[in-house]
C-alpha cells in the first residue's frame, strides 16, 4: 500500500478509511462486550465487596475474596475431582479413539461403513441428552455418585474417532509400507507412524475435550450428590445458590478460581490451538 498521490486517490482512500474505521470500531465494541464478564469478574474479585458495583480507580485491592471463597466451600476437593475426571476422560478417549480411528482409516472391510455411521450418530445424539437413561444404567451398575460414572458415557467419543480417522487417512501409505519393510508390526506402525503424525490433532482435540469436561455441568449435576465426587462446576453452582445471599465479590473470586487453570492453558496454547485445527482439517 504505497501512497502514490493520484487525482482520484484521496477521495477513494477517504471512503475506504471511513469504512475501515467503522469496522474497527465495531470489532472492538464486540471484543469489549465479549470480554466484559471476565473483566468484571477480575474487578470484583480483587476489590472489597463494597466496590462490586462501584467502579472507582482508587478502590483498594485485596485478595480476601479468594481466601473467603476458598474456605466457604470445599474447593480443594472439587478441584481434585475435576482434575481426576478430566484426566480419566481425556486419557481414555485418546486410547480408545486412536485404536478405533486407526481401524476405520485403514480397514477395507465392508462392515466399516455401517460401523462408522454408528459412530457418527453420536455427533448428533450426545450423552448430554440421554441423562435419564444413562442415569438408569449407572444405577443398575451401582456407579451413581462416582467420578468414573461422570466420565464413562463420554469416553467413546464420536467426535474424537471422526477427527483422528480424518487425520490418519491423510497419512501416506508409503510411510506405512516403509515401516512394514523395516519389520514393524501393526502396533509399531500405529505407535511410530500414525500417532506422531497426528500430534496437532491430539492437541486440538485434547484441549477441546479438557475444556468440555472441565466445564460440563448437567450430567455431573445429575449423577453426583456428595462433596467427594462433585466437580468444580457443580460445586460452584451449589455454592452460589445456597446461603451466601449474593456476594458478587466472592462469587467472582470463586469463578476465577474455577476457570483459571483452563484460561491459563489456553493463553499458553492459543497459537498452536488454531493451527492444530487448521492442520486437523476441520474446515
Amino acid at each position: 500500500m504505497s501512497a502514490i498521490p493520484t487525482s482520484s486517490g484521496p477521495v477513494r482512500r477517504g471512503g475506504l478509511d471511513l469504512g475501515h474505521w467503522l469496522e474497527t470500531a465495531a470489532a472492538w465494541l464486540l471484543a469489549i462486550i465479549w470480554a466484559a464478564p471476565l473483566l468484571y469478574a477480575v474487578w470484583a474479585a480483587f476489590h472489597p465487596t463494597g466496590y462490586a458495583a462501584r467502579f472507582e480507580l482508587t478502590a483498594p485491592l485485596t485478595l480476601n475474596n479468594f481466601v473467603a471463597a476458598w474456605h466457604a466451600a470445599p474447593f480443594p476437593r472439587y478441584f481434585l475431582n475435576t482434575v481426576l475426571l478430566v484426566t480419566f476422560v481425556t486419557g481414555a478417549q485418546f486410547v480408545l479413539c486412536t485404536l478405533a480411528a486407526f481401524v476405520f482409516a485403514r480397514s477395507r472391510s465392508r462392515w466399516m461403513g455401517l460401523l462408522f455411521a454408528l459412530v457418527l450418530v453420536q455427533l448428533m445424539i450426545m450423552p448430554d441428552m440421554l441423562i435419564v437413561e444413562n442415569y438408569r444404567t449407572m444405577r443398575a451398575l451401582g456407579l451413581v455418585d462416582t467420578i468414573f460414572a461422570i466420565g464413562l458415557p463420554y469416553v467413546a467419543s464420536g467426535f474424537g474417532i471422526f477427527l483422528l480417522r480424518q487425520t490418519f487417512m491423510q497419512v501416506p501409505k508409503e510411510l506405512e509400507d516403509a515401516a512394514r519393510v523395516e519389520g514393524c508390526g501393526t502396533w509399531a506402525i500405529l505407535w511410530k507412524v500414525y500417532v506422531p503424525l497426528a500430534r496437532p490433532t491430539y492437541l486440538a482435540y485434547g484441549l477441546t475435550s479438557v475444556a468440555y469436561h472441565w466445564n460440563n455441568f448437567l450430567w455431573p449435576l445429575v449423577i453426583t450428590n456428595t462433596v467427594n465426587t462433585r466437580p468444580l462446576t457443580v460445586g460452584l453452582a451449589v455454592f452460589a445458590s445456597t446461603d451466601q445471599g449474593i456476594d458478587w465479590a466472592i462469587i467472582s473470586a470463586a469463578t476465577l478460581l474455577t476457570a483459571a487453570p483452563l484460561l491459563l492453558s489456553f493463553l499458553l496454547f492459543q497459537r498452536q490451538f488454531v493451527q492444530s485445527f487448521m492442520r486437523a482439517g476441520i474446515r
Partner: protein
Amino acid sequence: MARAAGIGGSFGRERTTLHAWLMLAPAMILLVAFTHYPALATIWHSFFSTPKGARPARFIGAENYAVLADDPVFWLVLKNNLIYALGTVPLSIGIALAMALWVNGRIRGKAAMRMAYFVPTVLPMIAVANLWLFFYTPDYGLIDRMTRLLFGWGPTNWIGSQETALGAMMMVAIWKEAGFFMIFYLAALQAIPPVLHEAAAVEGASRFYTFRRVTLPLLGPTTLFIAVNAVINGFRLVDHIIVMTHGGPDNATALLLTYIYDVGFRYWDTALASALTVVLLLILCLLAAAQFLLMGRRTHYR
C-alpha cells in the same frame, strides 16, 4: 495390495483381522452402551409408567405422550426451544464469521481481539452464568446502567420478566459459542490460498465482491460443520438456564432439556422424562435428515 478378505487393508492376515476387531471393540461397546442403547431404551421406557414405591412400572401404551399433548407447559417448552434455536443458530454463526474476518484482516490489536472473542469458550458456563446474573440485575446491573446512560431507560428486570428472559438467555448462549465457531472459520480462512484474493484484487474486484464470490463459497463446508454444531447447541446448551432462571419466570425460559431435567430429576417422573427425551431425539433426527439432504444438494451444486 488387497491380499486378504475380511477386515483387510493394513490388517492383512487372519490374526491381524482379529486384532482389528479387538481394537475397535472397546470404543464400539461403550458407544453402544451410552449412546445407542439409551436412545432405544428411552423409546421403550416411554411406554411404561413410572414405578412408585412398591408399584413396579407397567405398560401403559402411549399414555405418557397423551399427558404431554395435554400439558400446556410442554407446548410452551417446545415453542421456547424453537425460538431459542432459531435465534442462536444464525446469530452465532454470523457473529463468528464477522469475528474471524476481523481477526484475519489487518485490524489493529488482532491478538488481543482474538483473545477477547475466544475467552467465553473457555469459561465454565456455570461460572459465567453468575456473572451474567449480575449484568442483568435490575437497576444497578451493568446493562441497566448502560441503557440508562445511553437511552435514559428505567430499570428493566431482564431475566425476571416473561418478555425479555428468553432473549437474555439467548444472548448468553450466543456470547458463549460464537468465539468457538470463530476458530473454525479462522482455520478455514487461513487455508484459502492468498493467490485467489490477489487475483481478485488484480481484476479490480471490490472487497465485498471478493468476499461474496471468493471467500464465502470456500467457507461453505465450514459453515455446514458449524451449523450442525450450532443446531445441536440449540438443544444442548442449557447450563446457564438451570442456574440463572430454573426455566422461569413461569416457564418462559424452559427448554426441552431443562424440562427433561425437571421432570426426571426433580419430580422423578422418569417415564414422562423418557417420553420427553424421545421428542428431543425425534427433533434431532429430523434436523439430521434435513441437513443430510441439504448437504447432498450442495455437493450436486458444486
